[in-house]
């Protein structure tokens, strides 16, 4: 069986800029005045991460704040490019759920936002036509489709965003803490949907702080600390390891 995701020795360095020269003006001033010159520092957010995932597997990424788990997810998604190493994805459709309702515009109606939001993920008009009714049904917002998004409550906006995200129907799902938003009922609905994806044999990479959610969804988990992978294996053992890290500080 071919792998769904291959992460090969991925490292990522961010340049931390002190006195950031983000204008031509400050760049020119920096030539003459040392005090205003930009100072750069290299921060390794990820160091030599490697793992493989088979289709249908669900992997949890856990770790403390700043451990690099979101950066890793963004590299897998292709948002950041790795400083070294590479990521190979099987030729499947990748859905990134880092934030709900990305690209939604408050002045546009619900319907217009569904078309705009879906096209951001590269769907064609025909594909959006096909999923449109499912998105509306899932969001339970039929009667608000011709209303501007600015008149939606924040809960309604989250529902529309989530309805769109889960109906994009990707083969590989990259999920980052979107479950943290919304009330309990909403979170339950999200988790139920994630389990449904799981049963449908989707490949899932799941970033979360919640040990409970990771336990429910993932069969394997990876613990990151200061950009290094300190553990990769069974979810229960990974969570124990994570709790040890939390206890150590």
């Amino acid at each position, binding site marked *: 069986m071919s792998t769904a995701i291959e992460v090969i020795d991925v490292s990522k360095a961010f340049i931390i800029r002190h006195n950031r020269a*983000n204008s031509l003006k400050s760049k020119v001033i920096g030539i003459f005045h040392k005090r205003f010159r930009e100072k750069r520092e290299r921060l390794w957010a990820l160091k030599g991460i490697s793992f493989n995932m088979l289709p249908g597997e669900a992997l949890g990424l856990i770790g403390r704040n700043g451990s690099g788990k979101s950066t890793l997810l*963004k590299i897998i998604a292709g*948002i950041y490019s790795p400083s070294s190493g590479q990521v190979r994805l099987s030729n499947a459709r990748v859905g*990134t759920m880092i934030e709900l309702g*990305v690209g939604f515009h408050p002045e546009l109606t619900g319907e217009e936002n569904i078309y705009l939001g879906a096209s*951001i993920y590269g769907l064609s008009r025909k594909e959006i036509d096909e999923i449109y009714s499912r998105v509306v049904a899932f969001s339970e917002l039929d009667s608000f489709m011709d209303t501007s998004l600015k008149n939606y409550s924040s809960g309604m906006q989250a529902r529309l965003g989530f309805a769109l995200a889960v109906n994009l129907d990707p083969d590989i799902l990259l999920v980052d803490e979107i479950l943290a938003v919304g009330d309990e009922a909403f979170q339950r609905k999200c988790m139920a949907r994630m389990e449904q994806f799981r049963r449908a044999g989707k490949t899932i990479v799941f970033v979360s702080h919640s040990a409970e959610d990771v336990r429910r969804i993932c069969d394997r988990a990876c613990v990151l600390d200061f950009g290094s992978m300190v553990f990769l294996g069974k979810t229960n053992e990974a969570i124990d390891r994570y709790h040890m890290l939390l206890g150590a500080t």
Partner: protein
Amino acid sequence: MSSVYRYRELIRNLVFKDLKLKYRDSTFGFLWSLANPLLVISVYSFVFGHLLRVGTERFPYFLMIGILAWNFFAQSLMMSTGSILDNGNLIRKVAIPMEVFPVATVLFNLAQYLLALVVLFPLAFVFFGVLPSWTWLAFFPILVLHVLFTLGACFVVATATVFYRDVRHFTEILLMLLFWLTPIIYDIRSITPSLQSVIYLNPISFFTLGYQNALYRNVFPSLAEVGILVGLSVLMLSLGYVLFTRLKTRFAEEV
């Protein structure tokens, strides 16, 4: 560039979003976008045509051609300073071929340019008796080259603004200077040869002259003129595209 085609639905939606947002809640909608060029054309016609008596025939029509083409270029450029930066939230959350943003910016302004032409040409016909000529056909290839040239320049500006935020102000000032170095208000034939050679240093002049030859002087462009326009647009587009694609992997971290 193939990914740009795959994301054509997104480009379409971005263009329509901007058009809708601009005109949805105003009573006269699109007509508002004509207010600015109409006013500029009227004021310049009065000041240069009546007060200073430049003596260019059918002067408002002459101005219209130059100003609408200039507005397309200048507004595309100004808008593209934000086309990556203002979409930062999107770029940090979804993997997206970022070329779509400058492309959408240029297409939005192209739509406005064409709409303005469609409305103003009948006016030129009514008030100045401007009649179509076969040379008008040259307008379309010139427009295509002008769009490619503009897109190239927008790639440069969009990229530069990500790294240096004040490129926006710099662009504004540069455009103001370039406006007067382009033969929009004055006929190139009415200035001294030494001044003409200065005007020819400005690449945008060649596009303006191309439009004027086709639509105003009713002459077809010479082979040399076509060659210059093709050369300029290919050069600008390659420069912009290479710069953009070489630096785009850093956009998500910089915006």
